[in-house]
């Protein structure tokens, strides 16, 4: 039996009515030791900020584990939700406070999966955030290694001060972020 899927549609410009939570951007509570603020601007193909989008993140915990029954190693039981979401503000900026995920142990470098939704996106676009202090792991990551260096670079966040990483997302055009088919 195979049922046919429900199609995707855009979130439209008024997504904040349904999708924003006051603490949605906090993957970890404020004040968590080792927390990192991942922040950036979502740009369209004209280089203008997208002020009506939303960025969601999904990741393993600091030990590289998921509190999810489909992790073949078993659910971690840690209660780590691993999910963040941040609507973009009037400058197109999103912010997520999290911890760097540990390596999941299958040869991939530490990474965060990202979904982007906006008016004008009929389906989400998916990308990944990698970490600038993981050069050795990034060099052998199967996804990064499969990309030309200038494209792979769009997936690596940039240091932006103590405990802050910058990860801009360019939907189209010069410096376009690599988007993934999952």
């Amino acid at each position, binding site marked *: *039996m*195979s*049922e*046919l*899927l*429900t*199609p*995707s*549609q*855009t*979130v439209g*410009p*008024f997504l*904040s*009515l*349904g*999708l924003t*939570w006051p603490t949605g951007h906090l993957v970890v509570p404020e004040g968590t030791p080792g927390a990192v603020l991942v922040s950036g601007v979502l740009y369209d*193909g004209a280089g*203008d900020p997208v002020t*009506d989008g939303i960025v969601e993140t*999904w990741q*393993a915990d600091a030990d590289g584990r*998921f*509190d*999810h029954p*489909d*992790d073949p*190693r078993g659910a971690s039981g840690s209660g780590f*939700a*691993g*999910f963040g979401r941040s609507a973009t503000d009037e400058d197109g900026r999103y912010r997520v406070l999290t911890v760097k995920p540990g390596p*999941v*142990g*299958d*040869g*991939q470098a530490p*990474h965060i*999966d990202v979904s982007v*939704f*906006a*008016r*004008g*996106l*009929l*389906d*989400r676009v998916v990308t*990944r955030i990698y970490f600038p202090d993981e050069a050795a792991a990034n060099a052998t990551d199967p*996804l990064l290694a499969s*990309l030309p260096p200038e*494209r792979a670079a769009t997936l690596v966040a940039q240091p932006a001060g103590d405990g802050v990483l910058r990860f801009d997302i360019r*939907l*189209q*055009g010069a410096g*376009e*972020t690599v*988007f*993934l*088919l*999952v």
Partner: protein
Amino acid sequence: MTIPHPAGYRVPPEGTHPPLLSPGYRSTVLRSPSQPLVVLPHRLTEVTGPLLTGDIGPRDHDLTAQHAGEPQGQRIVVFGQVRDSDGRAVPDTLVEVWQANAAGRYHHARDNWPAPLDPNFTGGGRVVTDAGGNYTFTTIKPGAYPWGNHHNAWRPAHIHFSLFGRAFPQRLVTQMYFPDDPLFAQDPIFNSVPDEKARRRMVSTFDLDATRPEWALAYRFDIVLRGREQTPFEEPHE
């Protein structure tokens, strides 16, 4: 320890989801990637996903009960089942909804077309599916509204839905439409779905048996998320 390569989620059939570049919907022109998408095989981060069931308020399932008075409009019950493409129910999964009021206006600072706001309607709700994957919420039927996409463009009445499923590839945002809407033919968002049969799966069905006598009409909207590959495949060891 070697981690077994997990079974991934099946690729959606061609024509199910809209092309990101759908020029009839003008906003896609500058917001759709120009480079081809890069295939990401499903590994641990993709066979897992957020399991969100907390923070549901007592009135989050009833959009008509979130203010001092009742909102204007036709009261309706919207219900259905969330399942995967193998027919398996998706229990305990968060369903988020948002919509315009009965006059077709959103309770949002950037919606300023001259239709009345309703002080008794915000238009956001959330529920978690039960053990059988079923959800129900109460609301009012949203109105159609004009938008600037092309001359005399009107959005058919719709309710936005956001779903997580249990794994990252199942994440879905869609819109539920109402049966026989005469605005379908001119709407580039509805028609961005290439397959006409897939398009019809976004249209709810009126369900007389589910109406609440002397209270509310009822619409059924089942939602089907991607199913999982049956057998894990082996990746060559490197």
